[in-house]
């Protein structure tokens, strides 16, 4: 007989049948965990977000370069969405000049710097939705320390208070769970937690 260890069960519901309703009500602070998705998979997610509505998105990238994003969007267009990029990937490599839809910045070294990066860049882009890709650099939910959780919750609270309003109504934090499944689900201050799974392997048979 196993011991009655105290564990918490995280319940995830597959939402294929309620995807439209879920995306319609996707507001506030959203944590989007995924299994190392590519930018093209994120485009698929963004297509569902505020479907057929003209919105502006600020995409703060610590993962994908502006160059890669542009190429991907040529193959997988994102109609009705205007994208502004903060490229924190290419800044170190070459001497890039900011463009109308992209600025190059050094990668933030902690969540406090990330918050400032967000605040600085919502001024010029005035987005409806902010995406941070990703927060995996700053916290590992497989085994977070109390200090990490303290910093993370402080970040969530302040970023929510300082950025969201009636027109700017969603901030999406991406988290790559390749380091292991999330043993701690940060339910405090997050309005929705979603998981996006991309299965690349083609099944032998389809419905």
């Amino acid at each position, binding site marked *: 007989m196993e011991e009655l260890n105290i564990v*918490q069960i995280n319940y995830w519901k597959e939402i294929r049948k309620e995807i439209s309703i879920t995306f319609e009500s996707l507001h506030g602070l959203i944590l989007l965990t995924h299994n190392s998705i590519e930018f093209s998979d994120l485009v698929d997610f963004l297509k569902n977000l505020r479907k057929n509505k003209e919105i502006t998105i600020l995409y703060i990238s610590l993962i994908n370069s502006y160059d890669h994003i542009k190429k991907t969007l040529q193959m997988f267009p994102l109609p009705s969405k205007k994208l502004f990029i903060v490229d924190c990937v290419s800044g170190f490599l070459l001497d890039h000049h900011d463009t109308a839809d992209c600025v190059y910045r050094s990668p933030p070294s902690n969540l406090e710097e990330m918050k400032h990066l967000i605040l600085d860049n919502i001024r010029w882009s005035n987005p409806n939705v902010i995406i941070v890709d990703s927060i995996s650099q700053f916290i590992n939910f497989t085994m977070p320390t109390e200090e990490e959780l303290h910093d993370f919750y402080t970040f969530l609270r302040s970023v929510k208070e300082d950025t969201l309003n009636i027109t700017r109504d969603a901030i999406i934090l991406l988290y790559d769970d390749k380091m292991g499944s999330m043993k701690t689900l940060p339910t405090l201050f997050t309005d929705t937690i979603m998981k996006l799974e991309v299965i690349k392997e083609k099944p032998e048979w389809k419905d």
Partner: protein
Amino acid sequence: MMEKEGEIRYWRAIHNDVDEEMKNLDGILLVLHDSMEFTQLIDFFNKIKSNHFTNVLYVSLTRSHDYMRHALEQKPLDQKRVFFIDCVSGFAFPVEENIDRVLYHKPPRDLHTMKEIIHYGIEKTNPDIVIIDSLSQLINFSKPTGEELDEFYNFLHDLRKQEISMVCNTFILLFDAKMGALAHLPSQGIDTILKLEMSKPTKLPLETSFLFGEKKALSSELLH
């Protein structure tokens, strides 16, 4: 424009409304879990239709009745009377011990036999809920063949047509997903797919008052 390859699945954490969702559950449910112990699954079972008394038929292919009975003594089920069909101890010819809540059966060799066992169990016990533990003994969604999937969809079709009734309206198909990534998740014949993941209870950091803008006792408290 290019077509994307592969399948994208979306899941939503339902920690805020799990009790409400579970209370009103019906239809055919596929419940994926990572080799959870029976005592851990009891927490989940307790949430199902928790607002009224129910009879449950539990068809076990993985745990013996003896084991589950001991587990339930330690951690009882609320508002549920469970009838077991033990397909684990069947070969050991256990003594019936005059217990009228358990039937022994040989493990089913395929989904067709599984269906017969379920039908027999429903006739005997007239349950509100049927739990199958687990489907992973009979199908592997990591690399199912077309034939396996055909058989599985026929099984779901027959459950819905022949077994679901006004009384017996909830079928829970447990599936141990530890065998690997599920290349195929059934999209037809299943009303709800849930994934259960075990985690540590979330703790607030030691200093909590700053989070709420008020002076609270410094403590490490559980959120759930």
